[in-house]
């Protein structure tokens, strides 16, 4: 079977994220990295391959993003993907969630995967929903936030936490599954894999090549317009204690609690 993993390049966790006031889009300059949740999706694909209960012929990393996003693809390949697909086109800039999911689904259609894996959330977008959008376009069953997944012939037995506790859901493939960070512990890439990543096949496609209707993507094709960015109501900052001498710190905490009659 073929597994496609959706991966995204996001600002590094240490970079302060902000909205560029001139464009109303996220300022994506600064250090970037592969979205941490996506490394769990790649690891999940690797574990299916190594588990041996089904034969995995190919793991393909797929991203939509500017030129720089190839770094996320290289990283994905170093973590185990066999090759990658980069959907990139100026026409895609400013796409909202629905438009992004639509565009990704068109790129995926070209690949005809049996399973699409993705991360439960991106560090910058935080929409948790790309999987559900992609699945509806691909006409595949879907589940998000999966923390345990077992392959059983042509279906997956998935577990996740929902509103009332843990749900176990049987999903028939082809399917779209987003995974949470509790699903596995991603491996570190070997030096050899890092060095070899740039040599693995990487295909670049534009919107026209995968049949994306231009009216449905980019800023024009997006049905949501975000704007009027403003600060939330100011909240008085709390008191901060840097722990240097723990006895002293604890005294301060106890005094603080005492003052408020909390002990």
């Amino acid at each position: 079977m073929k597994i496609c993993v959706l991966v995204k390049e996001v600002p590094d966790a240490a970079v302060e994220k902000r909205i560029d006031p001139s464009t109303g889009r996220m300022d994506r300059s600064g250090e970037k990295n592969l979205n941490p949740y996506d490394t769990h999706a790649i690891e999940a694909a690797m574990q299916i391959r190594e588990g041996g209960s089904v034969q995995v012929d190919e793991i393909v990393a797929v991203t939509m993003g500017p030129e720089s996003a190839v770094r996320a693809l290289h990283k994905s390949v170093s973590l185990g993907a066999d090759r990658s697909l980069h959907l990139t086109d100026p026409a895609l800039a400013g796409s909202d969630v629905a438009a992004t999911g639509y565009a990704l689904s068109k790129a995926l259609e070209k690949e005809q995967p049996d399973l699409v894996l993705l991360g439960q959330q991106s560090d910058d977008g935080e929409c948790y929903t790309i999987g559900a959008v992609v699945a509806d376009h691909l006409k595949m069953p879907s589940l998000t936030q999966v923390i345990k997944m077992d392959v059983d012939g042509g279906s997956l037995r998935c577990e996740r936490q929902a509103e009332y506790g843990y749900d176990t859901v049987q999903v028939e493939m082809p399917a779209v599954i987003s995974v949470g960070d509790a699903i596995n512990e991603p491996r570190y890439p070997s030096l050899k894999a890092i060095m070899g990543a740039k040599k693995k096949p990487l295909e670049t496609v534009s919107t026209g090549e995968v049949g994306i209707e231009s009216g449905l993507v980019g800023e024009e094709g997006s049905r949501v317009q975000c704007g009027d960015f403003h600060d939330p109501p100011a909240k008085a900052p709390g008191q901060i204690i840097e722990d240097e001498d723990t006895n002293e710190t604890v005294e301060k905490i106890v005094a603080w609690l005492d003052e408020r009659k909390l002990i």
Partner: protein
Amino acid sequence: MPDVLTYVLHFEGAFNKNSLGAVSEGAARAEEIGGQCHALVLGGDDLTDELCSSLGAYGATKVFRARGPEGLAQPVIDAMAKAIDDQGHGYALFGGGLLGFEIGAGLAARKQAGVTMEVTSVRAEDGKLVAERPILQDSQISVSRYRGDLGIIIGRINAFEVVSRDGGSAEVVDLDIEYSSWSTQASMVQRGEQRGADVDIEGADVLVAGGRGLGQAENFKLAEDLASAFGGNTAVAATRAVVDAGWYPYAAQIGQTGKTVAPKLYLAAGISGAIQHKVGMQSSENIVAINKDANAPIFEFSDLGIVGDLNKILPKLTEAIKDRKGS
């Protein structure tokens, strides 16, 4: 069209509180733009006429009832798409929760609609609804305006208050749905499994909450020792990260897919303060956080923040509180 369609989730014969909040919110906002609020429910025989029409008490005028498997998103997408095709709703509104995210996003794909998630406030503007969403760890607010026939609004948990009105009763309409082939390719094996002990964190005055920073399941003892030092009505709570890891029972989880709490004192040890955790505890009267990372988001909403190693601080704090109690 100014009508608003909401999805109402239910479990074991009771409606979800956040869904009821969505109905209340939908009814109030629909009125402002000259429309009505409808609700859609999907499930088995437990969805009686009486139960469904009771949604009128929150402002729904009509309830669409579909028969189908509960707890999965895709059948609901089919049902909502059908209701919207029949009635031409202008907005679909969801309370916080996991299914709302999946259904709202799938519906956006199906109907080529705009979608905004984590919405904390909705208002009417020139006869249309606009939605506010905090972004970037709640440091900014972004306002969504919709183009096209349908706008989809997915609320943040606890964002919409449940408001009951007098004497409302809704008309119940059965929807005949032909489910998409892919909607029937997922089936619920077990729903709502409670993992681990049944503990009560909602009634506690003092909550000591532990996160991944505790390092391992055994270290929850540090939190438990501190809790018992406080004595009285005290409990230990947890984040989803540690519940998913099997370190602590699900019943102790605070947050979006756990409990909402508002104790007199909430003390976090090794918790980063992700939005999905914050939404479950931000109404606590006093918030104290111990975290070794000075940039942890939890310090943005703590009354007292301690930057340091919990392994050093917790045992000494426990002793100090015991001493203080003893004196």
